[in-house]
């Protein structure tokens, strides 16, 4: 079923191409090759990037929730998104100094620093207790990073629009070179996440039980955090800030499949991929000639589902 939904995404995006028949009619000369060019050079990399972004963010959400035992843990809630945004903003505004780093690296470093700060402040490494504190720390750090980002945008006005586009999270600019830079990191991150999933299962039993069953907790948390930075940094670097996927998709997958990380992680990856691809497709369809940022669409899809889950059971 998921495979079909995944496949249907390709057809969906080619259906949204069909309004382009109008465009083709305008450029009547050589219509076939242009349609093909659009599909091959614009649509295909865009869909692929969307799928990968969804997969990476979903996997990152699964790892973060698994490591912290906090159902709200996700890149956007625990400050990774905001930190990455700040990193990006720094790179694009204070160019001479930070410009040497790529945007992806900047996003990773910013996100990593913000997340470490949140984990320290919220004592996130001690699992089990004081779950509220972690989220509070995440919200606080996110707010701080967002404020700094805004300040940078105001100071450096000429770069502002790029940063704002990035903050909204849009796949408009996803091209083959985006995909080429993205997929190796994504594949490493996703493979790592799958290898980590048996240990994540044991972590759910609490630190004492996990250690007792032979899990090296420090090692798992270190590797897990590294994978999160890889997955989130690569996604954010490719398309900008996209929230809700990391928070929501792990819960959707758990609802469908149960609590075994080995089984729901692949489902979460598929769901996340489908969701972002769907959101991107809709982002073109809603106000047709214009594009709505995919991030906004995701929030539109995500919020009702989240409310439904909160109402249905205690997260």
């Amino acid at each position, binding site marked *: 079923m998921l495979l079909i939904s995944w496949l249907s995404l390709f057809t969906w995006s080619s259906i949204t191409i069909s309004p382009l028949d109008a465009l083709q009619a305008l450029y009547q000369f050589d219509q076939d090759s242009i349609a093909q060019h659009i599909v091959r050079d614009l649509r295909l990399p865009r869909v692929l990037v969307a799928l990968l972004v969804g997969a990476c963010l979903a996997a990152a959400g699964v790892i973060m929730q698994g490591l912290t035992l906090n159902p709200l843990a996700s890149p956007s809630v625990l400050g990774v998104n905001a930190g990455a945004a700040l990193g990006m903003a720094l790179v694009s505004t204070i160019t001479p100094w930070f410009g040497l780093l790529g945007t992806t690296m900047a996003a990773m470093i910013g996100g990593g620093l913000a997340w470490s700060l949140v984990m320290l402040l919220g004592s996130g490494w001690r699992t089990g207790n004081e779950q509220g504190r972690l989220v509070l720390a995440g919200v606080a750090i996110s707010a701080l990073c967002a404020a700094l980002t805004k300040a940078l945008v105001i100071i450096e006005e000429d770069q502002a629009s790029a940063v704002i586009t990035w903050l909204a999270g849009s796949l408009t600019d996803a091209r083959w070179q985006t995909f080429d830079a993205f997929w190796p990191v994504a594949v490493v991150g996703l493979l790592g996440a799958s290898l980590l999933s048996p240990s994540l*299962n044991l972590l759910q039993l609490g630190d004492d039980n996990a250690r007792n069953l032979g899990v090296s907790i420090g090692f798992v948390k270190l590797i897990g955090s590294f994978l999160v930075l890889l997955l989130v940094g690569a996604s954010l670097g490719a398309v900008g800030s996209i929230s809700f996927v990391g928070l929501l998709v792990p819960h959707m997958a758990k609802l469908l499949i149960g609590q075994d990380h080995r089984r729901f992680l692949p489902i979460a990856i598929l769901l996340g991929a489908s969701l972002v691809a769907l959101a991107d497709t809709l982002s073109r369809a809603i106000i047709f000639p214009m594009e709505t940022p995919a991030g906004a669409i995701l929030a539109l899809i995500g919020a009702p589902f989240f409310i439904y889950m909160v109402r249905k059971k205690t997260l």
Partner: protein
Amino acid sequence: MSLSTQQLSVGYHQKAIVKHIDLNLPEGKIIALLGPNGCGKSTLLKALARLLTPMQGEVQWQGKALHKIPSKQLARQIALLPQTQPIPEGIKVKDLVAYGRSPYTGFWGRTNQADQEIIHQVMQETGISELAEQLVSELSGGQRQRVWLAMTLAQDTPYLLLDEPTTYMDLNHQVELMHLLRRLNQQGKTIITVLHDINQAARYCDHLIVMKEGHIIQQGLPTDVLTRELLKSVFSLEAQIHQDPIAKTPMCVVE
């Protein structure tokens, strides 16, 4: 001696609760750790299972410091059942018990035929076979305790460490558990358990270790350890020692 401590001090937040303990835990016995609340018996047990890092001294397994042994390897030697356990969401009883096999399974955590047999066996021994398909979170406290015990037993370790395993259990399950520990002991397991009930300890254990304020006050056979003076000095209890009419073990009766 397989498990021993050298000048072990361990505690929380820089504060030592167990102080300079030298201890050899005799192999092949059922050993009870006794003492008033806060005496450090649970802390000692956690240190023995490397859940706490010593502040001074060390715990040794076959002459080697615990922290130098790879965690997975150690998890095949020593298993601990903590006193309080979380209530895992959405995990079935049989799946939780299967997690006990993790130290033996490969990278993906898949269980093989032999693992399944052990899982089946420990679920029978702990009387939870009929709960296999239920969610752990929907069980009663006593049932859940037996599920966690089954998981610990599935680890199939020569050393079994239990922290007040009889808490939350009905009396009949407590007795069943003590008999189960006896059986496991006869199969060759060394069992170290914190117990609250002194009479239970005297009746079912071979070796008692009595602690107070982080130190070991007395250890040995129940008949040697349980005296009027000890009960008074350690538990501030005026009690007489009688002989259990059935098991012929010492039994304390409060005056």
